[in-house]
């Protein structure tokens, strides 16, 4: 590809993902299988005779039980069905005039090419009388000029206290529409965004309507695609399940709020770096209902390099883990509380992974192992059906969108979750960091340094083991180490590649776009 050839903004292309519901019968059938298979495995594992080194066994059991808790929560969530009828297609205003909506687009330092399509598309949304405000915490003249040129309000604060939450709260004070739409500056809304999200607002109890966050740059492959694989599972099966239990929480963008709901909880909380999560808890405590609309109504950009992804994950992990206490204290129905806990506790998975990765090294170097008195085929006989069916559940629930790359990327950032949980435990304050919308275009080994260190340790341990004891049991542990090395390396490889490793095939596809259509044609196509 020639370096200077103009490329299409992927956000202007129609999304290639639709959060359709997974086949419910298949899911229920799998859950039915999972129950006896889980009992089969844990019944075998938790026998006293299995205890090898007690400490290690305890760690293994804790990790396995944590995974079972997460898995059970996942199965439970994805089999929930929203049986409410779809909202009537009527405008939220009673007198027939289109309602007033404030569209807030917070920004800090994102470049204009990222911001401008969002503002332009926001101004073209149908179904409401709009006031589009660009909330620029970066106080950039070029942003002001762009907003003026396009016909949007430009709002800048003198100080940027409270980061994104503070920025929105500040804008809420200077606006007065009954509905407030929040769009991250990289999320280009489709014209029908408000038409569709206003429909559920006809129910006065609804505080907000959340829609999926689709990463348009996932088409290019690389880290964005892997991150999208994780998002697709969340905004597909998981969010549908949460919505069925009235437990969908706000995800910070592509969301339409009722102003009164926001005001009832005092606006976005500024003491959390996952302000959207805590805001949702507060709203649910106040008896508000929330809705999830499984339609891609805005198209954004995912992280394009390792540092961006790590930063995003660190913020989410720190915020969600920090909110566990808040969730436990919240006056919420049990069902909602469990949903919040499941989402928060997901970020403890890094500890379980650390345990799994440690076991082969401990076995190779010390001979100690968590399980005793069990042959490998006994273990596999009990574990394999449970594991394979659990994977099948992910495949079916995610309709095949959850990929190995997504899994590997999550695994490769296990250390982020560990650090975040330590920070949450020690109550170290987190810092809101805006996720960069464009790749750094450079290798970022530091962003994956802990992962690379673990890989090195596993490789060295394996070699040491192979040199010293070439027995089947050593080989078995070397194979486990190799499994972890492959997963971690697959997830961390993007840190060692420029541009987060866009795939050659994606470049080939882009080559077909050598003569891109005019921008207005792209927009028309995107909105068709």
């Amino acid at each position, binding site marked *: 590809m020639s370096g200077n050839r103009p490329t299409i903004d992927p956000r202007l292309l129609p999304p290639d993902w639709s959060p359709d519901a997974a086949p419910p019968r298949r899911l229920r059938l799998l859950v039915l299988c999972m129950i006896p298979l889980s009992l089969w495995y844990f019944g075998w594992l938790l026998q006293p005779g299995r205890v090898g080194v007690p400490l290690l066994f305890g760690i293994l059991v804790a990790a396995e039980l944590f995974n079972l808790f997460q898995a059970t929560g996942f199965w439970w969530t994805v089999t929930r069905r929203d049986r409410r009828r779809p909202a009537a297609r009527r405008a939220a205003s009673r007198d027939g005039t289109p309602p007033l909506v404030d569209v807030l687009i917070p920004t800090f330092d994102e470049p204009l090419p990222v911001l401008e399509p969002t503002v332009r598309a926001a101004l073209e949304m149908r179904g409401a009388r709009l006031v589009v405000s660009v909330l620029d915490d970066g106080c950039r003249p070029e942003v002001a000029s762009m907003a003026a040129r396009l016909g949007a309000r430009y709002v800048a604060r003198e100080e940027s206290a409270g980061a994104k939450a503070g920025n929105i709260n500040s804008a809420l004070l200077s606006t007065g529409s009954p509905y407030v739409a929040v769009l991250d500056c990289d999320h280009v809304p489709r014209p029908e965004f408000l038409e569709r999200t206003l429909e559920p607002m006809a129910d006065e109890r609804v505080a907000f309507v959340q829609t999926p966050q689709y990463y348009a740059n996932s088409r290019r492959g690389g880290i964005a695609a892997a991150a999208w694989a994780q998002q697709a599972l969340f905004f597909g099966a998981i969010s549908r399940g949460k919505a069925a239990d009235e437990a969908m929480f706000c995800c910070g963008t592509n969301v339409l709020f009722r102003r009164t709901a926001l005001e009832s909880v005092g606006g976005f909380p500024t003491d959390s770096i996952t302000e959207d999560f805590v805001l949702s808890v507060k709203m649910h405590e106040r008896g508000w209902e929330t809705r999830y609309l499984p339609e891609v109504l805005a198209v954004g950009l995912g992280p394009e390099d390792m540092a961006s992804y790590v930063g995003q994950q660190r913020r989410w992990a720190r915020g969600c883990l920090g909110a566990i206490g808040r969730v436990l204290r919240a006056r919420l129905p049990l069902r909602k509380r469990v949903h919040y806990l499941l989402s928060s506790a997901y970020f403890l998975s890094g500890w379980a992974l650390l345990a799994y990765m440690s076991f082969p090294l401990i076995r190779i170097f010390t001979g100690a192992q968590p399980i005793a008195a069990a042959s490998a085929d006994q273990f596999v006989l009990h574990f394999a059906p449970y594991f394979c069916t659990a994977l099948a559940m992910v495949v079916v629930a995610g309709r095949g969108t959850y990929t*190995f790359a997504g899994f590997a990327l999550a695994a490769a950032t296990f250390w982020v979750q560990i650090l975040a949980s330590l920070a949450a435990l020690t109550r170290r304050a987190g810092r809101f960091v805006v996720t960069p919308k464009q790749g750094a275009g450079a290798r970022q080994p530091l962003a994956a340094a802990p992962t690379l260190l673990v890989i090195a340790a596993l490789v060295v341990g394996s070699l040491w083991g192979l040199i010293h004891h070439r027995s089947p049991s050593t080989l078995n542990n070397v194979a486990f180490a190799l499994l972890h090395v492959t997963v971690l390396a697959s997830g961390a490889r993007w840190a060692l590649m420029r541009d987060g490793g866009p795939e050659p095939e994606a470049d080939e596809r882009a080559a077909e776009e050598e003569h891109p259509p005019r921008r207005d044609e792209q927009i028309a196509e995107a909105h068709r």
Partner: protein
Amino acid sequence: MSAGTIALRRAAGASLRTSRGAVREQALVAGGQILSGVGNLIYAAVMARMLTPRGFAELAAFLALFLLIAVPSLSLAAGGALDPGRARRRRGKVLTASIPVSLGLAVLAVALGPALGLSVASALALATTPTLVALIELDRGRLYGERAYGWVTGSLVAEPLVRLAVGVTLAAALGVAGGALGVVAGGIAGLAVARAGRGPTGEVAPAVPSGVHSAKRNSGAGRLAALTFLFLAVVQCQDIVFANATLSGIEAARFAAISTLGGAAVFATATIPFVLMPRAKAGEAGALGAALGTAALLGGSAALVTAIAAEPLLTLAFGPGRFDAVASFLPLYMLAMALLGMARVLAADAVARGSRRVPWIALAAGIVQLALLFTIGDSAEGVGLSTLIASTALTAGLTVERIPVLERPINRALEPHLPSPARRRRVQTALILGAMMLVGIGLRLLASRSLWLDEATSWFETQLPYHRMWEVLRDTDVHPPGYFTVLWATVRAFGDSELALRLPSLAAATALVPMLYVAGRAMYDRATGLVAAGFAVVAPIVVWYSQEARMYAQLMLLAVVAVWALHQALETGRFRYWFVYALAGAALAWTQYFAFLPMATFETAIAVVAWQQKRAGRPVSRLVIGGVLATLLIAALVAPLVPFAHHQFSVNQAAGKGFDAPSQVGGTENQISLYAAITNGIWAVFGYHSNATMANLSALWPLLILLALMLLGRGRSRATLLLLAGVLVPTAMLTALALNQPFLFEVRYNLTAVPFLLLLGARAVTTWPHTSRGRAVLAVGAIAAFGLGLADQEWNGTNPRSYDFEGALHEIDRRSGPKDVLMYMPHDLNNLVAYYPPGLKTRRLGPNMPAKKVPRVFLLESFFEDKANDQATRKALTKLRGERELVKRMKFSQVEVWEFR
């Protein structure tokens, strides 16, 4: 009704009309040809009664030579059928070329006559033949091209009628010379009718634009057709020439008897290709089917009749008791002739389509046949078998030539602007596959080993006459007779050396390489096909079973053919793929009973796809019709096997064995366990290894977790699901069966899964990495892993499946004298001991030891894990030690020998 539907119905209607028209034409001309044959037969019968025996022998020689000259002239008919205009224009040139030949023969008549067993008068009559038959075939070819089938039939019938009328009259007056002149007169009558004939519209309008290109193309096609049929004539005739020239009188006569009846069969189908050619040239659908059907019907009927009543036929034709000895072989030769008839049809179709490969395929078949004749043609059966193999190869080659994936643009005039990279790629692919096959053959030959127990049983069974082998299989074996029939023919052709015994397996495993390419390319893409083919070259278990005189290599090959054809049938709905699927499926069943596992899976897959299509609102009728017809065809083809299998099972049950455990199942200890499952998985992918290696490889099972994780988010195409089903469902069914019969839990009975695994592996290699470098590294890595597995399997002496009986018996042979005795344990080694004869007396180990006067006693033991056998051996050793002195204890792979004196 949509316009598309109307167009489809019109096309279907046109196709149906074409088929009916083609069948009518074929029936008309074939009827004329059969009448002509009957007329010739009557003529011969009348002459036999009119002439003295010596005179009739002379006339028979004359007729044989007449036919011998006529057969190559058929190439002129082929050329004329494709280019009737050229046939008209060429008459002068043909005359110019043939008259000198006739004159030469006439001049040499005096000298040639005695040499050919002819009188001078007959030799002079024969001299007219080159000109006469050339002109006849030229004009008949023109009539075929002009679709003047009534005139063709008239010419065919006129010839024997006049021959009979004139010949009988002249023979009465002039004797043999009169009979010969009658033959010439018949030829002239045939020529006169053909010459007078004209097509309804003159030359048939070609299906492509006329003009200079068209004329050149027609001319080229005519030459191509002539060349092709010339080579086909060589395949048809060179066996009789060879037999006459090289065999002893009796053997030559036996072959002449076979050949005469076979010649009648091929004579009946001779006109079919020429009737087909104009329609094939015009691209009419259904014409090939009609021609093939007619050829199969005539040839198949002839083979069937001879199979049912070979002896009565031979008696009828040649008198009682003269050639009864060849009765058992006659059906096989008739099958060869039937195949040749079908090959001629396929060749005609290909030539008419403009394929330039066909003459070379025919030439190659002729060369193969000649090579075989020189190798195994030392008896009537050997000569016949050469022709059978050559005609099978020819038919197979011409069928493969029609496979779309291998088709290259067949008519340059039609597609002059084919991009050269595509051509280059085809050549590249062919070269790569050729190289792979060569490497594959090399590896398989390099990895040779001693025959083992089952192979020795195969050898023993093929030493029997065919009917006896059939009975032995039915009464004592547990396998269907398909593979053993092939092996029996191979042994007749090539002897019973280790290489010859393993030749069918070697050939099948080598063919697996290109077949995996074809399947991989059709189901996925070229890269997948090439990688899968590469895997097949080095995959340890494929190499292992290509070096075993058992049916497993064929099983793998047929499984790939079946899955490929099924996939193509499901994707395209074309009936030819359903046909191939049915044939491959039936062949699988005839090869190994466990083939019912993948076949049941495939049949279920057809039902599932039909159900899915119906649910999606897509048309399903074609799929259902194709699937049902294929299933019925499989059922029809497998039905004759059912009584055989039932008898086999009953006899075995009655003997208290049932389908008992085979004598060797490897290291799974006949138990269903996870370890056994993992072991089977390793065998399927990495081959057979020592117990220590297997323990180490089994310990790597955590990598399966990695594999499962890597499958997340992968696509699930129909091809992938089909292959996965072909692996998993038979495995599950076999496991269920093994709950009752644990010995069934073994990779050998699920070998059809191996090539499917190779295809899936190739797909993973070519799609999982995101860069071409990654793909290359992974492919090379996988091949290297296979290579390591292969090296360990073949050359590490600790492989528990490797039994060095050959080494042990040769060593005994070297050390023993004629009065020495060899005792062996277990008793099943009897066939091996017979195959590698140690040059001394042999006997099964029993309670009695050899008498003291026997100078040396050798005791050979194998299969040590059988405790009863081992105890018996220990007991015998104790006895022998008490009576004799232990001279030497020799250890070979899985075999131990003690020498006493």
